[in-house]
């Protein structure tokens, strides 16, 4: 049952978006979010949406997976919608009953906010769908490396992320095994009240933690054996290099932000 968990869903592919440098994609996402939050009217929204739609189309990732990923967030979307719908004051009243008034401005604002959240999520999905977790960590490490100057342990953080990602499937497999072993000895995880079920998890968590610590200890020894001594003097096999279409992307992003700002200026 635990096999279904997928973390950092990544769809391997060969599109231009897939082949972009992870740093470009990370910067791109930030620029996209800036553009999205600068956009204040429907025209600039249209521009940002067109940009997103083009990127999704180029990436060739099925729309279904975006919708699938959106499911857990429906609640937040609905909540935002309702809040904005009821609590926006305006003059053009549409419906009024009891203490609640729904105005045209409210409807507009609710749609606006929901659109913003949707586009924000789709943008981040596009990043995780097209970038493998390792290249994402590599990109982050490289982008954050100036922070080493102020003694932020950037290399250590990315190493930790990398190892965590590496051990997720191993530990999931282990959990499955422990669950089976406890079931074989008569443990019951499916019936009973919530408190009983939570209590039933203890015999799973204790062995899991013990084994995780043992693994960590062995891994540390193995890493030491392979001459690991922190990030100093360490080299990389795969060097990140910006290519021509990375620079192209930067140009497009600049155009996007400029266009949004320009439209916002006109709108005044």
């Amino acid at each position, binding site marked *: 049952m635990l096999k279904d968990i997928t973390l950092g869903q990544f769809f391997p592919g060969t599109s231009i978006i897939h082949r972009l440098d992870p740093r470009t994609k990370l910067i791109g996402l930030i620029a996209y979010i800036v553009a999205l939050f600068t956009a204040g009217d429907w025209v600039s929204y249209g521009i940002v949406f067109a940009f997103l739609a083009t990127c999704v189309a180029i990436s060739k990732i099925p729309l279904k997976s975006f919708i699938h990923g959106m499911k857990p967030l429906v609640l937040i979307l609905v909540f935002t919608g309702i809040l904005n719908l009821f609590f926006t004051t305006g003059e053009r009243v549409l419906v009024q009953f009891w203490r609640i008034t729904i105005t045209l401005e409210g409807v507009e604002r609710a749609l606006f906010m929901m659109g913003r959240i949707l586009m924000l999520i789709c943008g981040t999905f596009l990043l995780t769908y097209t970038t493998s*977790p*390792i290249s994402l960590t590599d990109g982050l490490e490289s982008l954050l490396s100036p922070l080493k100057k102020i003694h932020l342990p950037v290399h250590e953080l990315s190493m930790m992320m*990398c*190892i965590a*990602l*590496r051990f997720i*499937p*191993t530990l999931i*497999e282990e959990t499955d095994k422990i669950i089976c072993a406890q079931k074989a000895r008569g443990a019951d995880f499916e019936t009973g009240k919530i408190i009983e079920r939570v209590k039933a998890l203890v015999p799973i968590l204790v062995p899991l933690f013990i084994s995780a610590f043992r*693994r960590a200890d*062995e*891994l540390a*020894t*193995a*890493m*030491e*054996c*392979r*001459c*690991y*001594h922190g990030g100093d*003097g*360490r*080299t*990389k*096999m*795969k*060097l990140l290099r910006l290519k021509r279409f990375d620079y192209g992307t930067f140009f497009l992003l600049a155009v996007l932000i400029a266009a949004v700002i320009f439209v916002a200026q006109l709108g005044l």
Partner: protein
Amino acid sequence: MSTAISVEHLAYSYPGVEDTPGVAVFEDLNLTIESGTFVAVLGSNGCGKSTLAKHFNSILLPCGGKVYVGGMDTSDPDKLISVRKTVGMVFQNPDNQIVANVVEEDVAFGPENLGIAAPAIRQRVDNALKQVGMYEYRNHAPHLLSGGQKQRVAIAGVIAMEPKCIVLDEPTAMLDPKGRREVMETIQRLNCEKNITVVLITHHMDEAAKAQRVVVLHKGCVCLDGTPKQVFSQVETLHKIGLAAPETVELCHCLNEQGFTLSLDNLDAEECAQALYEVLKA
């Protein structure tokens, strides 16, 4: 022939927790391993095999005596990296020694730590993966490989650092027969073709029989030492310390107890059958 590893009067005891006394593993152990040889280390559980292995690359430091690797003292902090570069180590559980989530990235981990330039790492990784026969799996995720394949990736990770010596601590203990065969073939090939010194710690007598030299440890001392034929013919001694000889030797030993006079150095099934044939014909 030069000396790869030499252990001189090694004493080691695990430190005790709080007030409990420590556990002494070695008191005075002497052992010399020549370069380019394939040495198997046998011994029952708790005799100090793994502890000894950890002394070979400074994971544990001697409490008394010295361990030299290629002439370098393992307790010298300045030589730490050079010692670990010279002696690579492979452990029992392949899952707990693979660091990265792509095969080739994992093999590159060692050379990356040594600070080698990117193109040279690429070359080493490709060579190492080809040597263990895992080149076509270079872009796979390690958790999708079989145990034998994972262990071979771990070996590739060690040989990418180009060590002179590889210490394997029960590398086949968690593998199925097919995985065991793959790993053993890889080890033997590395020893023959690359002239890498191999120290194999194992519980499998048939694996030890493939070595050039077998060292049997018992209670922190070298109990038997010699070629597989010499060591395994001491069936009585092996039994006394809780070990067994390979099945063919055991068979001959049993027959000898019934009045036959077979020699006890037939380690190969083929050889053993031939010897039996000779005896029965006469």
